[in-house]
Every structure is written in C-alpha cells, then in structure tokens.
C-alpha cells in the first residue's frame, strides 16, 4: 500500500521528465502522457480513499533523507483522512483541467512544455499534500510556487505576463521566508522536522505558550503568502495573465488552497496556542481578506479578475472557518470551492476562448450562443453564491454556524461577504450571458458594429465535457457534508474527538435569504435596470474608489518595497564602486605617490649628500692650495712651529 502512496507523486513527476526530454515525439505531444499519469494517480488516490474510509490505519513510510551529526533526518509521506480528501480533489480536478487544456492550448507553439509544467505542478502539489514533515511540505510548497511562476509566465512574449510571474514568485517567496523561519524555530526547539514528533511535543507541553503562538503565526505567514490573504494577496489578480486552465488549476483549486491545507494539517499547533490567539489571527485575517476581496470583485470588469478576487474572498472564508475552530467546515469548504471555482474558471476560459477578450463589458447575450457554458457557469455561480441544493450552500453554512457559535462579529462579516459574493457573481453572469450582445457578429458588415468583430461559438466537446463533469460535482458534492445524511464528511475528516457543531436551521435560512437578496440587487441593477450602476457607485463614493484602486496595496508595495530595493541596490552599487573600490584605488594612488616621493628623496637627499662630499673636498682643496706657496722658507717656518708644538706636547704630558 505504501508503494502506492509513493507512486502518486512520482507518476506525474515521471510524466514531467518524459515530456521535457521527448516532448514532441510523445503521443498527443505529451498531453496524453500527462493526463494518463494524473488519471492513474487519481485511481490510486480513490483506492487509498476507500481503504481509509473503510477504517484502515493511516499509511506512513519514511526514508533517511540525510544524516546530520549522529542523528539521521527521517522524512517521509503519510496518508490520513485530510490527505486522502486533498489527494482526491487535486487529482480529480487536475485531470479535468488537463483534459480541458488539451482543447484550450490547441495550436500553441510550446504545447508540450505546457503539459510538462502542469505535470510538475501536479507532482509537487501531491508531494506537498502527502508530506509528513516540514521539509517535504516546504519543498512541495516552493516547487508549487515555481510551477505557478513558470505557468503564469507561460506566454512570456507578453511583458505583462513576465512581470506578473516575477511578482507572484517574489510575493509568495516573502511568505515562504516566514514559513521557513517557522520551520527553523520548530527544528531549533525540537531537533526534528516530522509532524508526528512535533504534535507529540505540543501535546506534552514541551512546546507551548508564546513560542508556540510565534511558530503558528510564522507558519501562517507562509499560508498568507501562498493563499493570497490580505497583505500578500497582490499577486493573485496579476496571475490571471497566465492561460486560463492554469488559473483554474493553480489559482483556484489547488495551489492557493495549500495555505488552508497547511493550517488544517498543523491545526494542533494553531489550536493549542494559549487561548487560541493564533486561530483568532487566522480567523480575522480570513475575514478581512474575504470582505475586502469581495468589495474589489464588485468593481472588476475583467472576467478572470472577478474570479481571482472571488478566490481570495473564498480563501478568506476557509481561513475564517478554520479560525473559528471549524476544522471540518474549513476543509469541507476547501473541497467544494475547488470544484465550483474550477468550473467557473474553465467556463470563463471557454468564454474567453470564444470571444478573445476578457472584458465582460464587451460581452452579453452569450447564453443563446454558448448554452452549455452558460448552464454550467450558472450552476457554478449558484454554488458560489451558496444557494440551497448546491455545494457552496452546505460548506458556507457550516462555516457561518461555527462562526456564530465561536466568534459572532466574524459571523456578521461572513454574512455581509456572502451578500456581496452573490451580488458580484450575478453581476458577472448578467454582463456576460444575458442582456443584449455588445459585440457585432463577424458575418455582418462591421460598419456599425460598435463591439469587437468576433464570431462566438460553443467550445469543442473536449472543453465542455469537463465543464459538465465539474458542474455535476458542484451540484451534488455538497450532500457529502449534508447534516441530514449524518454529515459523513464531518465524521471522516474531523479534528480531535468532539463532533462538528450541529446543523442550525435558523442560520441556513438567514444565509440563503442574504444570498438571494444579493442576487436580487444584482438583477435589479443589471437585469431590470431599476438603478444605474453609476449612481450606485457615486453613492458609495469613498469606498468604491478605494475598491477600484484595490485599496492602494499595489501602489503601496510599488513605492515602498520595489522602488526601495531598486533604489537601495543602485545606491549600494554606486557606494561599492566609489567608496570601496575608490578606497582600494586610493591606496594604489597613494602608493604610486609614495614611490614618486621616494624617487625625489633619493635623487636630492642621498645623491645630494654624495655630491656635497665631493664638492666639499674640492672646496677644501681650493682653500689649502694657498698654503703651498712654493717658497722654501714658509715650509721651514712650518717645520719649526711643528717642532715647538712637539716639544710643548712632550713637556706637557
């Protein structure tokens, strides 16, 4: 069985290897290899899922990745309830998206490379989900970040895509640094990276108090980065530059959910921080992100940007769920969201594929032209809004009940957000599918057509197939957690022993009412035109401009971080050249000066001395010359004086 678990991440990885080296020559230019690998992984995860459902023990297997000093660092994988669910989500949604992208990416010059990146992404996501220790989690975490970088920047000819991929990687990398710091702190205190040992240490109280909260918050920092929560959410909207299947797979269903999965996986750490401060932080950050992203989504015109902000908002919802001790609620919402958000993205993809534009203001009236896309997206929107039979209703409702019980103010935030969610999703639907077409069909002469010249058509079966598959799940996956069926999901995926909060009809009714109200207002504005959207915008004047300017986060980061680093690097470069190099060259110049000084010193002083002696002797000679008079008697005189001196000398001594 464990071999099976190891195979799940390895299969897509092998597919990646194969495609990279033999891309073109593989069947279906690598696509079928990728899809085959992922489908196999899906089958294996189903097998594991049913084994676990049948009450089998969670699988664990480790290898000695490396030995430090005496003690080896054992790293491995584990499959328990949470992992099984995530495996299912990733593989099922993943394969649907793989199949969809065969049609979507048809004819792209770098077609095999796209599937190579997708397989690598699937492999690293599976590794992340299966990890039983911080290191594999972190490795999967970073590799997933890499794949999102590669896939966002897939059409790198477009400078916007290049910048977006860079922005995505750097922002997630900032989050990863906090995550890494958290891991280091754990290793520093416990000397081990495995989750098992960490949980034992937390239970035994060896790791507790402020330190535990610190670790929890640092780890949550990573989650903020990866799941695009408030401070580090700026990269997700720009990530829409990538191809739509990428946005669907990575930026809706799986990768961004990694942050939520990480919080769920390490829930014990968050849970046991003194009086749940960590969980409160998670909840509030989730709440704020949910509300703020929802407000921004309302004013977005690009269909994918709307979806992006909706994802941030829904992720905020999951964090909120987890934060208010709703472990099952959070995970359940994660699963349902994966399905209907992937569906909405793929639908948007097929719309873009047909209309060759993202701007919903240039669409309209597509319902008749693209019926299957319209109906599947309608199901998706209703699920997102949280209307009764659909998946969104059950998971969002559970979160709201948990919030109601544990953190009332957040309940109200949740409620308002669900109202806005319903509003913006319906607004998007009305703009895109209903109302009069704001484009001129191609065959008419485009004399008066005020829209773009385009001929929308329904996407090919290879794209609509997955849409219907996902629509089915978006509709009925909710029942898995339905209370009246004894919430099987709650029993399967739960934290600790106490059961999830019982189903509360009153909250269900309130939330549905709020959702319907939201849709009603949207219909009033866009379908029946009671109010003009411009008037509403003027009414909420200060907030709406904030929302349009995305709460100025981008400009803030642009000014402080980006410009700051570039400025710092330029200053340091100049500093390096002039100061340090200057200093070195200065020493060089000083030494050259010294050598010149020595030459002068040597020339004048030492040489001078020698010449002086020469000159001195000559001068002395000149003086003494006069003594040599040539006259004998002078010499006699000198001799006589000499004798006298000698005598005196002799007498004296």
């Amino acid at each position, binding site marked *: 069985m464990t071999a099976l678990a190891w195979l799940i991440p390895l299969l897509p990885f092998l597919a990646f290897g194969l495609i990279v080296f033999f891309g073109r020559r593989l069947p279906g230019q690598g696509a079928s290899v990728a899809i085959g690998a992922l489908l196999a992984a899906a089958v294996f995860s189903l097998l594991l899922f049913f084994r676990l459902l049948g009450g089998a023990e969670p699988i664990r297997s480790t290898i*000695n*990745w*490396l*030995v*430090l*000093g*005496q*003690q080896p660092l054992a790293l491995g994988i584990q499959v328990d309830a949470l992992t099984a669910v995530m495996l299912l989500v990733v593989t099922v949604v993943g394969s649907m998206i793989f199949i969809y992208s065969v049609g979507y990416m048809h004819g792209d010059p770098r077609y095999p490379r796209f599937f190579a990146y997708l397989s690598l992404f699937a492999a690293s996501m599976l590794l992340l989900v299966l990890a039983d220790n911080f*290191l594999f989690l*972190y*490795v999967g*975490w*970073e*590799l997933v970040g*890499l794949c999102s*970088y590669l896939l966002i*920047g897939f059409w*790198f*000819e*477009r*400078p916007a*895509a*290049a*910048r977006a*991929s*860079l922005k995505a*990687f*750097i922002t997630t*990398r*900032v989050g990863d*640094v906090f995550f*890494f*710091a958290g891991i*280091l*702190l754990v*290793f*520093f205190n416990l*000397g081990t990276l495995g989750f098992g040992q960490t949980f034992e240490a937390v239970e035994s109280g060896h790791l507790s108090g402020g330190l535990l909260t610190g670790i929890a918050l640092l780890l949550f920092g990573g989650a903020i980065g990866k799941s695009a929560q408030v401070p580090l959410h700026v990269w997700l909207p720009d990530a829409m530059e990538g191809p739509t299947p990428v946005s669907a797979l990575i930026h809706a269903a799986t990768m961004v959910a990694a942050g939520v999965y990480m919080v769920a996986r390490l829930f014990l750490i968050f849970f046991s921080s003194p009086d749940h401060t960590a969980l409160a932080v998670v909840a509030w950050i989730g709440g704020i992100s949910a509300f703020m992203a929802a407000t921004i989504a309302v004013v977005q015109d690009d269909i994918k940007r709307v979806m992006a902000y909706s994802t941030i908002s829904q992720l905020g919802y999951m964090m909120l769920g987890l934060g208010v001790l709703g472990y099952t609620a959070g995970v359940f919402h994660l699963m349902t969201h994966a399905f209907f958000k992937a569906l909405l993205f793929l639908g948007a993809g097929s719309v873009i594929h047909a209309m060759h534009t993202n701007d919903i203001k240039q669409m309209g009236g597509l319902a008749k032209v693209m019926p299957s896309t319209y109906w599947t997206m309608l199901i998706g929107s209703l699920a997102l809004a949280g209307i009764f039979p659909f998946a969104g209703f059950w998971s969002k409702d559970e979160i709201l009940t948990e919030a109601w019980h544990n953190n009332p103010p957040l309940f109200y935030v949740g409620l308002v957000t669900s109202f806005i969610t319903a509003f913006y999703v319906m607004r998007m639907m009305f703009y895109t599918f209903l109302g009069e077409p704001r484009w001129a069909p191609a065959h008419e002469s485009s004399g008066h057509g005020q829209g773009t010249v385009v001929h929308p058509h329904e996407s090919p079966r290879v794209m609509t197939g997955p849409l219907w598959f996902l629509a089915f799940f978006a509709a009925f996956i909710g029942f898995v957690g339905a209370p009246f069926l004894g919430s099987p999901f709650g029993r399967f995926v739960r934290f600790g022993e106490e059961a999830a909060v019982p189903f509360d009809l009153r909250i269900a009714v309130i939330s549905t009412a709020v959702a319907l109200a939201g849709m009603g207002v949207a219909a009033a504005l866009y379908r029946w035109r009671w109010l003009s959207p411009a008037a509403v915008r003027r009414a909420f004047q200060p907030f709406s401009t904030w929302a349009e300017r995305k709460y100025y986060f981008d400009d803030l980061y642009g000014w402080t971080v980006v410009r700051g*680093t*570039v400025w*710092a*690097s*330029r200053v*340091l*470069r100049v500093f*390096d050249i002039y100061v*340090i*190099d200057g200093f*070195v060259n200065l020493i060089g110049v000083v030494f050259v000066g010294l050598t010149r000084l020595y030459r002068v010193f040597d020339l004048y002083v030492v040489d001078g001395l020698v010449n002086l002696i020469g000159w001195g002797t000559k001068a002395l000679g000149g003086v003494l010359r006069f003594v040599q008079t040539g006259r004998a008697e002078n010499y006699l005189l000198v001799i006589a004086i000499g004798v006298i001196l000698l005598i005196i000398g002799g007498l004296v001594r």
Partner: protein
Amino acid sequence: MLSLMLFLPLAGGIFLLFFRNPRAIRGIALGASLLSLYVSIVVLGRFDLHGGMQLLESYSWIPAVGIAYRVGIDGLSLPLVLLTQLLSAVSIVYSWRVDMRLKEYMFLLLLLQTAMLGVFAALDFFLFYIFWEVTLVPMYFLIGIWGGPRKEYAAIKFFLFTLIGSLAMLVGILLLYFNAAPRTFDVLSLIQQQPLAGQLRLATIAFWGFFLSFAIKVPMWPFHTWLPDAHVEAPTAGSVILAGILLKLGTYGFVRYSLTLFPQVFQQYASLIAILALLGIIYGALVAMAQTDLKKLVAYSSVNHMGYVMLGVSAAAFAYGKPDLAPAATTALNGAVFEMIAHGVITGALFLIVGVIYDYRAHTRGVDEFGGLGAILPVYSGITMVAMLASLGLPALMGFVAEFLIFLGSFGVFPGFAATGLLGIIITAAMFLWTIQRIFLGPANPRWKGLADMDTRELVALVPLTVLMVIFGVYPRPLLDIINAAMTTLVAALR
C-alpha cells in the same frame, strides 16, 4: 596515489609543451585532466567514510626546519578535490575553441589545477603556502592575457589583493611555527598541540593574519571589490575556475585552519564575522540587482553565496565551548561545506552560461540588451533557468539543501543573525528572477534573431553540471555523508 593525482595535470601540462598542432595540445590537456579525475575517483573508491585523515604521504623535504611534503585527504577536502577536477575538466572542454596562444592557455589551466589540488591536499603549512601562492600566478596570466578590455588593471588588482592577504597569513604561520614545541609546520601536529592556546594576544594576531588572507579570498564584504573586476575581465574558463574553486580556498582555509587552530579567538570574533557575512549576503544581492553586466551580476551573487557559507562557519565558531550547541554547529558546518560544493557547481555553470552567450554569439554582456531569448534559444534558456533557480535556492536543487542546512545550524546558534540572513533569500530570489525576466522573458528582441542554440562543446560542458545540481538536490546523502563524517570529527575535536 594522492601525489600522483596532484601532479598528473602538471605532468600533462609540461608534456603538451612539446607539441605544436592545436588538436594534439587539446587532446593531451583533456587527457591529463580526465586521467587525474579518474585517479581521484579511484581515491574516492578507496576512501573509508569514518577514517578521518587518509592516504597520508610524508616525505621529508627540509628536515632542518621541520618542513616535509605532507599530503592527506579527509571528508572536507575530498569533495573539494572532486569539484576541482570536475570544473577543470569542464573548463578545458569549454575552451576547445580558444585559438590565441592555445598552448600557454592549456598549460596554465593544468598548472592551476595542480595548484588547487595541492592547496586542498596539503597538510604542511609550507607546502600549503607554496600551492596557495602558485594558484595566483596562472590566474593572473589567464586574466592578464586572454582577458577583456581592462585586463591588466583587473589582473594586477587581483594579484596584489590576494598577495597582501597571503603575507598576513605568513605572519600567522610563522607565529604558529615558532610557538610549536618541536618547531614543525605539520598541520596535524599543530592542531594536536594547539601551540597558541595559551597566549591569547599572539593567537589573536595569528588569527587576524589568517582571517585577512582568507577573507580576501572568500571574498568577504569589505575585501570583495577585486572579484567583479577579475570576473568581468577573465576569460570564461578562467572565471569558471576562479568562481568555482578559488573562492573555496578561503572558506576551506577558515574551516580547516582558523576553526581548528584558533577556536577561542574565532569564537570571540564570531559575531563580528557573522555580521560581515550578513553584509555580504544582503549587500551582494542588492548590488547584483543593480548590475547591467551579466558577469558582474554573477560575481556579486557569488559574494552573496559565500556570505551564506561564512554565516555557517561563524555559527560553528560561535558554538565552540558550548557542548549543547554541538549538533547545531555540525549542521551549520555541513551546510557551509555543502554550499561550497553547490556554489562551485552552480556558479561554474552560470559562468559557462554567460560564456556561451558572450564568447561566440552576442559579444555583449549587457543584461538589458537581451530580451525574449526564451523563444530563440530554448535549450539554452532551459539550462540557464535550472542554474539560476538552483542558485536562488529552489528546493529539489542543490542550492536549497545547502542553504537549508546552514540556516538550520546557524538558527540554533544565533537566531538573530540567521533571521536577517533569511531576508537575503528574498533579495537573491528577486535578483535572479529579474535577471531571467530581462534576458529570457518579454518580446523577442529582433537583434538576436539569428543566434544558434548551444553546440555540443557547450552542452558537454554544461549538462553534467546541471545533472549534478538536480541529483544532489533530490538526494544529497552520498555527498553529505562524506562531509558529515569529517565535520562531526572536526566539531568533536574542537570541544
């Protein structure tokens, strides 16, 4: 066995002097280098993991003064030796198309290879010092003759900088020599008897002497200005070896000599050195970001990476005397040595990559002059992507394992510095990705329309390095066990 490995390249070098036609010269050069590589692999085979210092050879040279030709190898020097062999072979393959004065070029490369192997294998300070100085000469000529426009300035600057350092080291060596009881240069016995353990003042002087020489070589923060100049002007093969191995001489020196011979003094100044290392990390990354010349950018990234190594080493030094920190110190040292190898492989590859674009294709290294090469040179951009991602420490590649271990270790010893070091990761990531973006992404620059992708010569040089990066990234056990055995014994000996 070891001496055979040491002097084989030199023998090859001398042998090829007698030939005239370039094909023969290239063949012999490659042959000598590969043969030496083969011998070192045999040495690897013979190497027993927990044997400490092995394959010792000792022939008395100047007995009067206690100098002997002592050579030996252990877990620390073996990986570095293998790295030297690999990079030298790769750079010889890469310089297959050098036509100007090929004979001297190949001779200098082989001489350099012998000198570097000597430094890593020498166990006698005198021999170590000779090899240390000999490494300078060929590199000086490589930069000076085959270099770029400002080659003389760069060559002289490089030479003088390192020379001054090595003079300071000589003072240290002599201090050790004169305080040793039986007056010997033998490193092992010096480590045994710790001659300067008593006098703290002398030990400090000796330590700073060694520090200056190694810090210049590493290069650590204030002494790094020679590196960008040397790299920009050096020929590709020269800068591959300069970055790949010559920088490691400094860090190897720190681990092999400073740490073992002056533990108390090193511990005293460990925090200062850590700060310098951090400066290296953050300063290197930031300045690299502002560079327009690709080679200078990679040079500053080396300053950044060597900053990590020094962070690990200073962490290990700081933990001297505190037994409970021993495991953290071992991890930090493991990380530091692994990073040395990783940096050698990665930056070696990066410089080859720069060479591929610069030497026979675009003849310009301005990062902003490129753009959209991704479409034009797919294979090239693939390999560069892997190398640059490995360099910024992406998991499942070699760089990450090293940085991970360094941070694991140094976080245990001084969390404050390690935390600031983490900041470096973001800046390094930003720097490299921005470079990738400026060169590979964006609209295809028409100017480079006709560029040919990599030819076999470049592929043969680069592919082994890339494969190594991935293998040791996914499963570092084989290399790490060798290093780990050596480091555990070293840290245990330190206590």
